[in-house]
């Protein structure tokens, strides 16, 4: 018997979409533990997001403080650890976003908890399936510590639906000590496109695009389909496109309905980030590339000719409907 404390990120008074995947996983875990899900909202603006959060869990705990305005693992982890104890939780969870991955293991250390990272399935109260070796295998692990920490792979769980109206309570942040760490600034990549993490369509380009200017044609395709942009490490490393477009083992893990891999060879580290996609299209001029082994539809062609043609053809299709 124990509750599940779900650390949830929010923005502008709403839970982030990424948090909803964790709430699905957290509900499954709570069922196994015979407890309930308690949503934890931390930071400045937490209170404003609590009404939305309360639609998704029976209890919401808000820890709001000016001292917690900017996320820092040093200040947030002790809050998470304290709330695990205060809410009688035996499991603490978050989506494996860059915040979740930074925060949860630190909180786990404060709780002497073992952690299952990036889980893809809840098998029982203490066992979880998770991808290893760049997604080339799935490991089932048992975590035999009194408190368990879990991060959840967003692409492996449906977004949770609303479950009624929960109660909201507030808790004190305690003494906030950043240990000398300070947030300096965030160089945000602004984009009107959907988030890479939950886009229905992703258009990704690789080294074979040659330069950033050439990505414009992929962006045109993306905008035609309401897609997010993605890229291989080779393309991001070369500075063709922003680093946070990277899809793969160490970039974003995506599982859209439709994934276009254009001029990407299909290294295992790239495949790790996209082979869960429903339909994969590969466009590459070399028919022997590994990307064609995961592609549902492979087109052996030069992007310079085929992508503009693809855009024209999709426009034609749309016009005919």
């Amino acid at each position, binding site marked *: 018997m124990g509750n599940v404390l779900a650390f949830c990120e929010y923005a502008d008074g709403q839970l982030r979409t990424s948090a909803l995947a964790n709430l699905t996983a957290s509900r499954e875990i709570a069922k196994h533990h015979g407890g309930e899900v308690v949503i934890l909202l931390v930071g400045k603006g937490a209170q404003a997001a609590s009404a939305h959060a309360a639609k998704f869990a029976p209890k919401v705990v808000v820890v709001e403080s000016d001292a917690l305005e900017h996320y820092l693992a040093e200040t947030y982890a002790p809050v998470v650890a304290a709330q695990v104890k205060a809410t009688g939780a035996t499991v603490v969870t978050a989506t494996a976003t860059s915040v979740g991955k930074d925060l949860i293991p630190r909180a786990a250390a404060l709780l002497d908890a073992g952690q299952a990272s990036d889980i893809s399935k809840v098998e029982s109260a203490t066992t979880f399936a998770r991808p290893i070796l760049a997604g080339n295998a799935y490991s*089932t692990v048992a975590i035999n510590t009194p408190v368990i920490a879990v991060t959840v792979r967003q692409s492996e769980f449906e977004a949770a639906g609303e479950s009624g109206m929960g109660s909201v309570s507030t808790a004190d942040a305690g003494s906030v000590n950043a240990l000398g760490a300070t*947030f300096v600034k965030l160089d945000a990549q602004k984009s009107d496109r959907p988030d890479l993490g939950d886009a229905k369509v992703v258009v990704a380009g690789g080294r074979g695009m040659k330069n950033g200017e050439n990505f414009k044609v992929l962006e045109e395709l993306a905008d035609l389909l309401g897609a997010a942009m993605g890229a291989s*490490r080779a393309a991001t490393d070369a500075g063709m496109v922003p680093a946070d477009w990277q899809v793969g083992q160490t970039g974003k893990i995506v599982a859209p309905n439709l994934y276009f891999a254009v001029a990407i060879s299909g290294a295992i580290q790239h495949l790790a980030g996209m082979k869960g996609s429903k339909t994969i299209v590969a466009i590459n001029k070399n028919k022997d590339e590994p990307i064609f082994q995961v592609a549902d539809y492979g087109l052996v062609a030069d992007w310079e000719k085929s992508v503009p043609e693809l855009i024209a053809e999709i426009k034609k299709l749309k016009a005919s409907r």
Partner: protein
Amino acid sequence: MKILVPVKRVPDPTQKTKIKDNHIDLTGASWIVNTFDEYAVETALRLIENGADGSKHGEIVVVSIGPDDAAKEIRTTLAMGADRAIHVVANDSEIDSLTVVKILKAIVESEKPDLVIMGKQAVDGDANQVGQMLAGKLGWPQATFAATIELDSANKKLTVGREVDGGVEYKQVPLNSVITVDLRIVAPKSVKNGVTPDSHNYSGEGARLPSLKGIMAAKKKPLEQKKLADFGAEPKPAIEEKSVALPPPRAAGQFVSDVPTLVKKLADEAKAL
């Protein structure tokens, strides 16, 4: 400045994954230094050297917990330029993240480094947790997923550019912190130490390859062996791998001859447009 770099040896990720008796079959596997840890060694070197003239202004101690024959991969990091190594001998089935963190904490407390620099994740288990846990246990600040580091040694602080969802976050941490590095830390100008001239460019992609001279020197560098028991660690991990399975194979795909066929199939067959 003294930097501690924990490194793990991992199976070469380019090998085909094989399963035997519900676990990964590693018989005959080839091994490498976890790529991110190689990058961490490279980062540590760039922090303590003058990249232009090669002079060194600090010490790098490598720590690895792993089986006997991991000594080979540990030597590789010495050949890159680390000064000495501590090898805690244990089979992989005897350790988990919690044990690794416990041992690393004890070594940090005895070695008293100014910084711990390590990979953000081991590419076998892909756990991405040891650095954060170690920082938490030590009560040290952390800067994870570092793509750039600027060291201000006079004021004993670092400004770290962290790759986060939606952009790059800059975080400042004092010395005595744990840094975990991301891929782009090895770009030509990612690490600034205030000594290497701004005009200096590190070359190529990835970490430096050991030179012949480095390989010879590494043979004479100290590699101290320790046991799990030296740290009061039990060879019975709390995190237990029950089984491993291969993912279900994807249904075979097809080549399409031209763009109109592709669009037609995407619309009618895959219902994706």
